């Protein structure tokens, strides 16, 4: 039964690929716009053999990871402090509420101006994208912790640092992880955009460069690899959740 349901989930993308391939072979759709899956795979193999794919993937990953740390860690710490202290929350909330609606992609020119064309602007874009979902979910996560747990920890003489570590952090962890998942999605969007402008490496650059050279297969390879990265991140985070939150009923 379970296996059957899994099979259904595999059938639809497989069917799409077969139909796609057939439509190109029978010349119903133009390979100029929709190259056949087989030729995309061919391009993928070629790019990975030449090493071009790996250098672009590693450039993007490097920026993603750094941006994630630079945006995510302060968001986490500040989010917990805001959740614990009402005055600090009231002070910082308006800043977040007023800057959150700005599309981060619209900030790219400004970020380029400030951080230049190099690595820093790309990392800054990812950091901004990660910051908001993580801080907002962390604040909500701390606020939803039942008050009784804070009563218990103060009754048992926990210091502020220990309250942070034994109540606020684990109590908010499920929400924080949701924020991180949203942040990963946001980071992927922004890294692709940032690398399309003024970059000479990365998956976004690879896609943009392919567009300029009219190398359609490579464009599809770029999309495929970004989708795959997102998929792997989701799997990793689910695994992380099982590791760090074994106490959740839903597991």
């Amino acid at each position, binding site marked *: 039964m379970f296996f059957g349901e899994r099979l259904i989930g595999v059938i639809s993308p497989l069917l799409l690929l077969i139909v796609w391939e057939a439509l190109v072979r029978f010349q119903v759709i133009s390979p100029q716009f929709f190259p056949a899956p087989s030729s995309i795979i061919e391009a993928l193999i070629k790019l990975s053999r030449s090493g071009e794919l790996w250098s672009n993937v590693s450039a993007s990953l490097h920026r993603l990871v750094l941006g994630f740390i630079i945006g995510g860690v302060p968001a986490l710490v500040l989010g917990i402090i805001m959740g614990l202290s009402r005055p600090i929350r009231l002070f910082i909330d308006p800043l977040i509420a007023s800057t959150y609606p700005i599309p981060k992609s619209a900030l790219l020119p400004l970020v380029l101006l400030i951080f230049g064309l190099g690595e820093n602007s790309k990392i800054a874009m990812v950091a901004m994208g990660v910051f908001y979902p993580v801080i907002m979910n962390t604040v909500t996560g701390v606020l939803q912790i039942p008050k*009784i747990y804070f009563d218990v920890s103060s009754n048992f003489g926990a210091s502020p640092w220990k309250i942070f570590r034994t109540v606020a952090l684990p109590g908010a962890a499920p929400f924080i992880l949701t924020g991180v998942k949203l942040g990963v999605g946001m980071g992927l969007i922004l890294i692709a955009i940032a690398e399309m402008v003024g970059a000479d490496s990365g998956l976004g650059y690879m896609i943009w460069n392919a567009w300029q050279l009219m190398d359609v297969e490579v464009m599809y390879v770029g999309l495929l690899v970004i989708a795959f990265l997102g998929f792997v991140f989701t799997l990793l985070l689910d695994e992380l959740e099982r590791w760090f939150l*074994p106490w959740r009923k839903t597991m």
Partner: protein
Amino acid sequence: MPTKISLSNLSKSFPSRSALITAIDNVSLDISSGTFCVIVGPSGCGKTTLLRIAAGLESKTSGDLSIVREDLKRPLNAMVFQGDSIFPWMSVWDNAAYGLKMRGAGAGEIREVVSHYLDRTGLLRFAEYFPHQLSGGMRQRVSIARAFANDPEVLLMDEPFSALDEQNKLLLQEELLRIWEEHKKTVLFITHSVDEAVTLGDKIVVMTASPGRIKAVVDINLPRPRNILELRRDPEFGELVFQIWGYLRAEVDAARARAS
């Protein structure tokens, strides 16, 4: 026995929209060391507020509440809360060890003390379990083990069994008495159940409906160790329940009249 907990003219009032609401009004009470003291009163009589003041979780408005400290290394109090209060993100073991860890006890002491109280509450097999895998009765046992393991000067209990079904309640009362007999710590126990009060207590304090004042103090001289089932057919038990209900009845009626 020397006095362990001393309340003198303790008062607490809360500001509300229109006026100041007095929750506790001029309560004076001495509880001697080793006494299992039970406070009974109608709901809203301020008994939980009184306990929270003793626990240091709430401030008093005037008067004094002091707990005599005999050993500087021991914490002043540990509380067993009403309802679910064990951390869902910690195993049974880590929950029971919480107080000891917070005050930096050594690993050896933690291991020894925690396994002792988990054993006494029948939870040793479940040490690695998480709270969501336990029944309500077992979760409250963890809470009791956590409080005892912290080895406080006094134990504070805020209606710890009120959310449990009748059978579980009886079992836990029995376990509580058994563990308490080991060291006979001073206990301040809050309940709305007269039966529970007489079953557990050495001294019963009946409180009035709001504002909370002391209506009567009754000493219970039923022999210890007590067998909860045997107690039920002891005529003295019935007599005491009847007497305390007499005090309480008027207060419950008053509380109901105010509510309607």
